[in-house]
Structures are given as C-alpha cells and as structure tokens.
C-alpha cells in the first residue's frame, strides 16, 4: 500500500482516540483497514459476497450459540431437544430456521464468492495465499456443516454420518481403525454425536481465525477488480467507506430479503423431509442424500465404481483448486478479456450444476453416466482446458488503467489508448 497516501479521518484528532491509539493503535487499524482502505473504484456487486460471507459467519455463530444453550448432545435426547426448541423455546423456531437455512445461505454466498474469483482470476499472483486461505475456510465450512447436520439426529443425520465417515475405511490398511477412532466406537453412536457437537462448536471459531488471515492477505495487495488489472495510481482507488460500506449495505439488504423468504415462508425447501424422522439405526432410508451444497461432490464420489478411487477423486476435486494459480497459465486475470476462457467458465458452471443434479439422484442409469461425464469435464477444466487456454487463447486488449474506462470517453475501452495485449 505504499502507493497510497494515508490521510487520517477527522476522528483521529480526538484526544481520547489519540490517548488510546498511542497505547493500542486500534483506531488507526480501523481507520486504515476499514474506512480509508483503498479499494478499486470499479468493483461490481459480485464483490459484495465476501462481506456477505463474513456476515453469514456471524449470524451462524450467534444463532448457533443460542441453539447450543437448548440442545442436548445425546442420542436419547437430541431429536426431542431440537423439537423442544422448535415448539417450546421462545422464538426457538426462528433461531433454528435461521441456523438451518443459514447454512444453505452461507454456501450460496460462498459459492458465488468462489465463482467470482474463478471468473475474474482473483487467485492469480500476487493473491495465491489469499486463495489458499479461502479454500481452507471452504474446507472448514464443509466439515462444520457436515457435523452440524448430524446434530438434530434425524434419519439423514445418522445415515449421512454413517456414509461419510465410512469413506475413510477406503484408505488401505489404516482405514478401519481410523473409522472406529472417528466414531469412538463400532458405529455412529453417542460418542460420535458428542464429539461432532464439540467440533461443530469449535470449528466456526477456527473459521473466524482463518477469515482474519484471509482479510490480512487481502489487504496486502487489495481487492482484484472486474478488469483484473492492477491499480495504476490514486485515481483508480476510492476509500472503502463510504463507497463500499454503502454498496455492501444495499447488497446485504437484498440478500436478507432472499434469506428471510426462506426462513419465514419456505423453511423446509432446502432440507430433506427424512431428517424430521428420528434416527433409527435399524431402518435405512431408501435413498441417502447429503445436503444440496454437497451434491456435486457426492456425484463425483459415486462416479467411480471403486470406493477408494471415488474418495480420492472427491477430495481431489477440492484439492485441485489449491493448484489453480499454476494450472491457469494465462497472465490475464479477468475473464472479461478472455473470450475462450469465458466459454469454458460457463461450461464449468453448468457442469457443477449438472453434477449437483446427478448427486441428488440414485446412482444408476442416466444420472450415473451424466455424473461420470461431468466428473471428467470437471477435472478436464483444471487439468486440460485451463493450462492450454493460456497458450492458445488471444486475450482482448486490456485497458490502460481502471479509471480509464470509467472516466475516459463513453465508458468503452478505447482500443487506440489501450495497452497492447499482454500475450502476443
């Protein structure tokens, strides 16, 4: 941030603020990182989803703490204690539906956030560690969501936990001992529920820590932007407050309308009816499915007839994202200037949705074949298309600066003034 000349906000001159700041520069931190923090002037609403994800984390932690005050992590009482929350705890139904639908909302927001990063090349240098930290948050979220779904001790809780923990048995030699160690016994039972509750309470705070690191890494080089080019000077940046606080606040309002619709008028749509049946180890549901946000990965898991292969592929489908900064060989960040990449990006988006559908269906017939084809396309996107695109694609000319298309004539990038293509 050397390029940026920091001019303190007026409140920094207040003597009390000065006294505190001399001892703990917390006001300076807020002023530099939240108020005067320079952000590219051209961020679109897709850049809203980072702050939305942070707000979702807070909503989940707060609603979760109130649920934990009324929840009993025991196989004998868990289901009834959740029903007690729904029926007898004051506004318990509201807190529960916020938390239950909040998980889905969190994933919707984070998936859009990730897709935005994929489209605008936000993972490219110098933001690789920022990208990794985001993926670490995503993995921690998945673990948290999975364990949280077990807690109400419904049929899908129990059988989902059984299926997913059993995946570890695919590991050669140590697989079975690992599964027994995870369970704390010989099946998913009370010890499993207890430790899942403990971890479900712990992990959100781990996520919060990772979020701080994510923000720290973000603030080193600042946000990427829709043009994907670096800021050339102060005219390319605007202070975060009031511009992006106002923009994010409006986006938050729109998002809360969407969220509230589900909480108040359609609270069961995103869940599975079987989870309102108490867990019964003797009755297997005809068709075990995870929550919607895991369906694409579930489809990849089942695309391979071999258990170990499926498990490796499923974990690989996320781990491969860690290599993305090097698999994408193009030096142009934004998809806006990459005509061929853009086509493959939207194909990839469709592939993930198709995988999601396949994951929701029984693994046979069309969904199985479609799932296998989509799995191949999923990995091909990272291992074949992206590496090759960097070599064969001719990117469109990049604008000279962020401010240019905004302030320059007519708004459209002027070809004459533009920098020559980075890759010629």
């Amino acid at each position: 941030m050397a390029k940026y000349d920091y001019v303190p906000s007026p409140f920094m001159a207040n003597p009390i603020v000065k006294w505190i700041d001399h001892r703990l520069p917390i006001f300076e931190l807020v002023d530099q990182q939240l108020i005067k923090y320079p952000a590219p002037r051209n961020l679109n609403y897709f850049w809203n989803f980072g702050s939305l994800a942070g707000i979702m984390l807070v909503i989940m932690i707060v609603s979760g703490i109130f649920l934990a005050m009324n929840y009993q992590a025991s196989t004998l009482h868990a289901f009834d204690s959740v029903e007690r929350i729904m029926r007898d705890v004051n506004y318990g139904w509201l807190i529960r539906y916020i938390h239950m639908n909040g998980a889905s909302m969190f994933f919707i927001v984070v998936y859009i956030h990730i897709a935005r990063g994929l489209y605008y090349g936000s993972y490219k240098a110098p933001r690789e560690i920022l990208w990794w930290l985001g993926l670490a948050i995503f993995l921690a979220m998945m673990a948290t969501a999975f364990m949280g779904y077990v807690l109400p001790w419904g049929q899908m809780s129990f059988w989902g936990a059984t299926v997913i923990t059993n995946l570890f048995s695919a590991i050669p030699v140590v697989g079975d001992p690992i599964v027994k160690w995870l369970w704390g016994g010989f099946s998913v039972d009370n010890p499993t529920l207890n430790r899942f509750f403990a971890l479900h309470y712990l992990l959100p705070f781990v996520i919060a820590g990772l979020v701080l690191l994510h923000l720290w890494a973000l603030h080193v080089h600042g946000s990427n932007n829709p043009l994907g080019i670096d800021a050339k000077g102060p005219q390319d940046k605007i202070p975060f407050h009031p511009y992006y606080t106002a923009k994010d606040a409006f986006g938050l309002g729109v998002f809360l309308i969407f969220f509230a619709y589900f909480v108040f008028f359609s609270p069961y749509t995103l869940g599975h009816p079987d989870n309102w049946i108490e867990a019964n180890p003797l009755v297997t549901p005809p068709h075990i499915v995870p929550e919607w946000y895991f369906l694409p990965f579930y489809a990849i898991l089942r695309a391979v007839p071999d258990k170990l292969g499926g498990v490796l592929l499923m974990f690989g489908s996320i781990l491969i994202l860690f290599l993305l900064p090097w698999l994408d060989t193009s030096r142009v960040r934004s998809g806006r200037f990459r005509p061929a990449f853009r086509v493959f990006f939207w194909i990839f988006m469709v592939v993930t949705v198709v995988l999601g559908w396949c994951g929701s269906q029984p693994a046979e017939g069309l969904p199985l074949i479609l799932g296998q084809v989509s799995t191949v396309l999923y990995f091909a996107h990272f291992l074949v298309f992206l590496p090759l695109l960097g070599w064969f694609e001719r990117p469109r000319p990049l604008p000279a600066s962020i401010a240019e298309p905004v302030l320059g004539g007519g708004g459209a990038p002027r070809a004459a003034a533009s920098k020559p293509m980075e890759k010629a």
Partner: protein
Amino acid sequence: MRYAKSLLAAGLLALSVGSASAAESIKIPAQSWPHDGFFGTFDRAAAQRGYQVYKEVCAACHAMKQMRFRNLAGIGLSDAEIRAIAAEYQTVDGPNDDGEMFERPSRPSDRFKSPFPNEKAARAVNGGAYPPDLSLIAKNRVGGENYVYALLTGYADPPPGFQLGEGMHYNKYFPGHQIAMAAPVQPDGVTYADGTPATVEQMSKDVATFFAYAASPHLEARNSLGVKVMLFLFIFTGLLYATKRKIWKGLH
C-alpha cells in the same frame, strides 16, 4: 444482467433441490389449504375436527409424542376444554413418597398418551409393521399434509396383475403401493359435533389440517412475523439503495 445471472443460478439451484425430492416418490397431488401462502392461518374448525379423527381413529395405533394437551390451544380449544380432554387419559407419574410409580389423570402439560409402550410392542400388535409417530408426519413425508390426504383417500383395488402381500393393502400414493395399514378413514367413521358430514375426503382433509398444525405449531406466528420482516426489509433496502446512489453520485 449480473442480477439476471445470479437469479438464474439461484433458480437452477432451487430446481435441482426440487427435483431431488420429487424424483423419490409418486406424484402427490397438491390440495389448497387455508394455511398456505404468506397470510395463511389454520382452519381451526377443521383442525378441531381433525383432532377428533386422530383421537377416535388414528390414536388407536399412532402416537404423537411431541404433542402436549396444552398445544390444543393453538387450534382454538379453551383452557377448560383442554383440561377436560387431558383428564380422560392417565399419565404415569412418580415415584411417590413410598417409591411407587402411580397413574393420575393427565394435565395440559402432559404429552399425548402413546398407544404402545415401545416400538416392539407396537410391531407385535400390528403384524410386524410400526405405525409411525404422527407429530411430524406433515413435515417428514414428501408432500407433507398433501401426502396425508393423498394416502388416506388413496386406497383402491389393486390393478390387475399386482401382487399384494399377505395382510397388505393397495394404496395409490404409498411408496411401493403396499401398505400394512387398512383404510383407516371410513365414511361416518366419526360423528362431528358441528354436523359436518363425515365423508372420507372431509375427514382426511380435517386430520391432515390437524397434522399440519402439529408439525408446525408456529406457522401462524412465522407468517405474521415474516410479513412484517419482509415489509421492513423492502423499505430498508430501498433506503439503502437511495443512500448508495447518493453517495456514488459524485464519483462517476
């Protein structure tokens, strides 16, 4: 345009989730319910008749262990009526000062009495089949209360060539079409105090209304709070948009 794309993504998502539940079972025809929609409220007369059907027909085999007698206030029964209904049942309490368990008439705070002490006992009497608890039946079946109505009105003669198991009954809407429960709702199976003719359709609709209430007793509170929250959010978001516009005005 960007909005259109995110809306599209949300739509695809909803579609994939929707098809997930639809593909699992036979198509359940949707009925129209007074408790549907943003302003829906339970038809209290129907729910009370439905409770009568549950009490006189279903309760012989099916428990509703999440329900307490005081919950009947939500379908419009008075405190005196609830006390009178509760007193018809005996609840095991204790131990008393002699260390003995004893039975006493139920109070509004007691749970509905279950017909069987445990699942094994229920299966023993019902030819191995377990009559499920009905507290959440309107939530834990695909189709909810529509499923309840479809099932109760869906008994028919099996189509030619259909192999019906011993002691099983054909039902158009039960998964696999074979159900151990014989058609529970029969014409005039109960006598309604309000003179409503007790047809199979009427009783099925009434009892489904009652189960919908039992599964979501806070539905009315949820709707009324939801409408207020939505109104607030629409106005608030409008103001936020105006604020954003004003702040950004000088920039471009």
